[in-house]
């Protein structure tokens, strides 16, 4: 067993324990954003995808690099944006006046769209 492997295993196990400790305290209210945040964090695989580029010098390598970069980038960008969008909605007090009240004509459609415009 190499030293590098032992180091990696140590890091893995400690990180696992830190994760259990930190995440065990998240309230149920935030479970969806938590999962979405965790989702964006595993987008770190983008680093792995980019590193393929170091040694990829043939068609198979390029294809794998392309697909991996595509997947990982979708994961990381989408994950962070949607988590931010969700968390923005959590308020301690109700917002004073909903935006759609000002424009009754759009009221029906506004419900969903209001959110996406805001983010």
């Amino acid at each position, binding site marked *: 067993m190499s030293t590098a492997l032992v180091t990696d295993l140590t890091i893995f196990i400690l990180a696992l324990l830190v994760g259990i400790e930190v995440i065990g305290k998240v309230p149920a209210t935030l479970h969806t954003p938590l999962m979405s945040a965790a989702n964006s964090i595993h987008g*770190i695989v983008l680093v792995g995808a980019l590193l393929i580029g170091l040694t990829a010098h043939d068609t198979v390598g390029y294809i*794998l690099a392309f697909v991996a970069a595509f997947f990982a980038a979708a994961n990381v960008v989408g994950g962070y944006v949607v988590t931010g969008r969700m968390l923005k909605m959590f308020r301690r007090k109700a917002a004073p006046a909903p935006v759609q009240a000002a424009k009754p004509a759009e009221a029906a459609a506004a419900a969903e769209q209001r959110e996406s415009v805001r983010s």
Partner: protein
Amino acid sequence: MTTFTNSIQLVYVLAAACFVVGLHLMNSPATARRGNQVSTAGMVIAVIATLVLLIHEGTVTAVGWTVLIVGALLGSAVGLWSARTVQMTAMPQLVSMFNAVGGGAAALVAIYSYIHDESAAGGVLGSTTVFTVLDVLIGSVTFTGSLIAAGKLQGIITGSPVMIKGGRVINLALIVVALGSAAFMLTTASLPALLLVVLASLAFGVLMVLPIGGADMPVVISLLNAFTGTAVAMAGFVIQNWALIVAGALVGASGGILTKLMADAMNRSLSNIMLGGFGTGDTAVAAVAATDAQIRSIAADDAAIQLAYASKVIIVPGYGLAAAQAQHGVAELAKLLEDRGIEVSYAIHPVAGRMPGHMNVLLAEANVPYPQLKEMDEINPEFPRADVALVIGANDVTNPAARRPGTAISGMPILDVDQAQSIIVVKRSMGTGYAGIDNELYTNPKTSMYFADAKRAVAEMTAAVKTLVA
């Protein structure tokens, strides 16, 4: 290691620290947004450090840069577009899709690494093979499993359990093929054997999720989330990258905790859920109580009177609310009641909806302040003081039958809705819930049934309350 590569490693450690701090800040809604920003910052510096490393090494070809940049830009565009346009009710599908691509990317990283090492002079190390196989196995299962889960949530694939004849035999065969190939790879480096592992795992992912029913989705999504994290950590072992190892471990822990919470909230073991939906075992025909009991149905006006003259109302939302997109209507009704000085709170069961915390996000979207959203343990003692419990699209989680032994849901923690002074249940029909058993709450003399789609029912009640108090 040179000073340069050491510095890059240190940046990765810094990024990992950002992820931990970011997750820590998720402990409260007040700091959660900052948490997401810290985590994003960690991701940005990790990616920048990687790009610096690629430039410094200078071995990336022009084509290599092109495929990486075009791939990453296209991926970012797709991710950004879906994150901006997704409706909050469709959040579980999106999370599932991100699990799929994350797991898929992790598997691809290991596959590439294996192809590269196999043709290289030194060959593949034994320990690396172990992590490669684990990564490819878990990543591929996650990829197809999450796609099927997303398909079920989106309604492209039926939400009810799909039982394939001889499914278990096929699953067993796939496991044997995957493990056999893996064992072979330990003795001889073999790309075809790795591809066999990939194919068997992809097929296994499909067969694993197909038999699982819609209401068990919170568990499945959490589990696949944990799988993705683990796959990413294994990819970190393969390419010797600490950022991937730490981030993967964190996500694995998070997914694991949520999986356990969800399974506990249904009082079912993980294996029971994974082996297929309700109604497939002996419990399907368990004790059905008082089928001849009277059902009272109620009209909007009467419901409005009960609500408008209550002093405390507890709203119990379920998947039906999400399916009917009724969250804004419910929030409007609640606001109307609150303006009359009525105390309104929401009782959220841990597995209400299709993913952990699904109801909270929908209600937050409808501008409901989060202190009004109460967890099961917190709200249960308050039901006896509630004048009206308004159940909207929730079924099994309110069934008092769970308190008795011998039913399909026995032992499942439920919301004590039957303790309220009166109960109004909004439901489309008398159909049973996911567990396939009658809900004894509906025949309770205190209960009135309001038969309508959640959105329509809420709109009618709101209108009726307005007329009443005008």
